[in-house]
């Protein structure tokens, strides 16, 4: 039986899908500030670097942008206006969005719906962050816990890893291979926090954090920025934008966790339901995907989520990595950017950075790490709590 909440999610997703079908929206500009370890660089400089690069990529001037959605988790109130005023005080709408790790994805979704609804013609989604005090709402809910680490994601995923490896009788190497692949991809990405390939031996020999997860199987903390410009079809015509560089947003889905069951963990169900809703909106199946950028803050997540997304059968996530099917040049490149493990996870920018990577790949501009024949991509993020955001993008030629 379909869970009533899941049925509601699918209905709501279908509604958003109708909006995007009737009023197409496109990514027309992307920009990044490299992800890096915490530094003295002000967040304003990080964010403006990404926004200026996105404006230049789109061939736009700042006054042409009508609304801005700013994804950030740790900087503080009113990040957007304080940062964006240095581009000129144009009076545009500025909204700050926070959804933990998925803050950037949430900002991108709001920008897409803003344009699809006709409220704006051209919108900006920008993610910017610096390491903060990481205070979490779950630690302030007034409820007791039986463990001080009950809200620590590394522990949750280490427990999931132990269960997964035991169930499928896999060695820890199967999980560690995810880190080897993604660090290898990150080494080819000039925007990545880590630019060094790692061997399986190095990944396994790095200090243990919790359970079977070693340091190199856990994403780093850091800072950075990512920006994308979204435009309507009408705006594309008006601007005379080179359409082959436009990447269309075919689906935008947001869901949150339901209670798990004996047979399916809450995390698996969250990814499965949100992804299926996105496929339905986009009118595609998992086999149509050439690219996936997903939330592998911990190596085990990539194995579980690729299965939940239908990229492979249950228990085959490790084989997908080992056989090279999820490598650049494989059947579907997973985390070609380097993912959260290699590219980094500065929180606010991460979801927007995924969109920038997929756009770059579909355009054929991911020099040095280009996945051949990249046409359709899925960006999927999880935020603490847990919430999920899924977006499907495809090249203009494939959607015209």
């Amino acid at each position: 039986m379909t869970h009533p909440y899941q049925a509601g999610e699918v209905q709501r997703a279908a509604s958003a899908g109708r909006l995007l079908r009737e009023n197409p929206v496109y990514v027309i500009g992307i920009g990044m500030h490299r992800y890096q370890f915490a530094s003295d660089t002000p967040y304003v400089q990080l964010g403006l670097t990404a926004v200026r690069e996105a404006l230049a990529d789109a061939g736009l001037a700042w006054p042409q942008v009508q609304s801005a959605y700013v994804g950030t988790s740790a900087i503080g109130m009113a990040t957007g206006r304080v940062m964006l005023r240095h581009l000129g005080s144009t009076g545009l709408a500025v909204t700050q969005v926070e959804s933990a790790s998925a803050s950037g994805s949430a900002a991108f979704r709001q920008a897409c719906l803003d344009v699809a609804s006709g409220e704006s013609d051209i919108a900006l989604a920008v993610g910017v962050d610096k390491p903060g005090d990481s205070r979490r709402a779950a630690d302030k809910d007034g409820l007791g816990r039986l463990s001080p680490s009950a809200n620590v994601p590394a522990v949750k995923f280490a427990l999931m890893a132990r269960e997964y490896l035991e169930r499928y009788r896999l060695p820890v190497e199967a999980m560690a291979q995810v880190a080897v692949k993604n660090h290898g991809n990150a080494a080819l990405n000039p925007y990545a926090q880590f630019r060094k390939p790692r061997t399986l031996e190095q990944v396994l020999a790095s200090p243990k954090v919790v359970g079977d997860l070693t340091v190199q199987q856990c994403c780093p903390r850091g800072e950075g920025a990512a920006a994308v410009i979204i435009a309507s079809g009408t705006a594309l015509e008006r601007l005379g934008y080179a359409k082959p560089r436009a990447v269309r947003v075919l689906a935008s889905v947001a869901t949150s966790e339901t209670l798990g069951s004996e047979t399916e963990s809450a995390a698996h169900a969250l990814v499965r339901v949100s992804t299926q809703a996105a496929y339905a909106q986009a009118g595609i199946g998992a086999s149509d995907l050439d690219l996936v950028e997903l939330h592998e803050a911990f190596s085990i997540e990539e194995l579980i989520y690729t299965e939940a997304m239908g990229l492979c059968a249950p228990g085959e996530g490790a084989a997908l990595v080992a056989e090279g099917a999820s490598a650049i040049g494989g059947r579907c490149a997973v985390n070609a950017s380097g993912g959260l493990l290699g590219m980094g996870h500065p929180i606010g920018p991460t979801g927007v950075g995924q969109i920038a990577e997929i756009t770059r790949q579909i355009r054929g501009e991911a020099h040095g790490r280009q996945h051949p024949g990249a046409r359709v991509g899925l960006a999927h993020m999880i935020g603490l709590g847990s919430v999920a955001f899924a977006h499907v993008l495809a090249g203009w030629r494939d959607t015209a």
Partner: protein
Amino acid sequence: MYIQEDDGALRLLFLQCGQCGRLSFPASSYGCRHCGAPSEAGSVVRRPGLARLRRAVTVHQNLSPGLAAPYVVGELELAPGIVEEAVLDVPDEQGLTPGMTVRAVARDAGEGRYVCRFVPAEEAA
């Protein structure tokens, strides 16, 4: 969350929903996690501090204040469908097997306070 009986045993406190009858943990929850009924419509029930261990891992780094690594945490089924992470008062993971029963015990936290930890049920007997 829990209460110590006169015999020293710990009992866990749950919220039993007045609408659907199902349990939520801890008892101070703001509503039923299953049907959403407000907690005022439910009642607090005491259950023996027994749980089924699903799996356990060792925390090697200091990830949260209040407990220095290394220590062992487990994913415990406290009641049907209610799974919580808890600290196991064991020296290491040896001897812990998925499916085994663990029991809540009170451990001295200083200044007259105690905390809830879990140990294999046979050990606690």
